[in-house]
């Protein structure tokens, strides 16, 4: 291969694989069984981690968008696309796993609860990001419009996060569950909290590895396109 992986990326990959293995073991073996919901409650550890990464990734995309608009350097545009793509993957598996958890707990796969509505809006906003980009042929225009859209789209992230606090909802509140109006919360014992934090750590390291890979792919695609154009001249 022409582009060998840098040492830093190999280290992150190894750390991601090891921490994901530990997190999986903790979810399957270490974390105690919740009495009311049974084992399906354990979906929560990876469900929360996946949704956390979805939101984090959209924030990373917005930061890259600002950096692009200020510097007009292609690297930031590539990072922004990478972040939106990975954010969509994690947000999507987060929603689907939540729906699977809801079937035995809420007795339905889906309900139009405020959290579920806002997360659907967030997903659609970022799917539309790629539709917008595909509709623009000029690379500079595509990058500029994409950056502005990624910034505007960020509004859907806090809206989704705070929806369980702002509106009446049956979705459990994990962060700030003692606040007034936080419904559907369940008490986590220490072992559950440890498992959640290890899962969050493992997914975050995995995210860094994936983002790095996707960024390299985007840069390599850019280089190839430039080479192709040079050859055509």
């Amino acid at each position, binding site marked *: 291969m022409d582009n060998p992986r840098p040492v830093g990326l190999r280290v992150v990959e190894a750390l991601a694989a090891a921490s994901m293995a530990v997190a999986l073991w903790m979810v399957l073996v270490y974390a105690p069984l919740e009495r009311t919901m*049974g084992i399906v409650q354990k*979906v929560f550890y990876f469900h929360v981690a*996946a949704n956390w990464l979805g939101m984090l990734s959209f924030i990373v995309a917005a930061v890259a968008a600002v950096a692009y608009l200020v510097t007009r350097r292609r690297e930031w545009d590539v990072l922004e696309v990478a972040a939106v793509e990975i954010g969509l*993957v994690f947000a999507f598996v987060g929603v*689907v796993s939540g729906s699977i958890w809801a*079937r035995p707990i809420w007795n339905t796969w889906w309900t139009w609860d405020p959290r579920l509505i806002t997360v659907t809006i967030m997903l659609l906003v970022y799917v539309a990001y790629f539709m917008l980009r595909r509709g623009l042929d000029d690379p500079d225009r595509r990058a500029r419009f994409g950056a502005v859209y990624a910034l505007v789209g960020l509004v859907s992230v806090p809206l989704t996060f705070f929806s369980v606090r702002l509106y009446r909802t049956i979705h459990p509140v994990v962060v700030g569950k003692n606040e007034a109006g936080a419904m559907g919360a369940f008490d986590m014992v220490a072992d559950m909290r440890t498992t959640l934090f290890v899962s969050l750590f493992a997914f975050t390291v995995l995210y860094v590895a*994936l983002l790095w890979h996707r960024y390299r792919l985007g840069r390599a695609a850019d280089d*190839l396109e430039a080479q192709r154009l040079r050859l055509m001249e």
Partner: protein
Amino acid sequence: MHQTPDTSLYFYLGQTVILGGIVVYIASLWWRWRELQADRAALHDLEPEA
């Protein structure tokens, strides 16, 4: 006495969706790298000799 329900089917389904989604995404990255390498090789063959 409280009896904990058996919800294992939904648990394994949920875990499979999350981990499966990540594996599929990693596979898509690998596939795109492979395509890129093939395109690069094809382009290299077209380049005139220096």
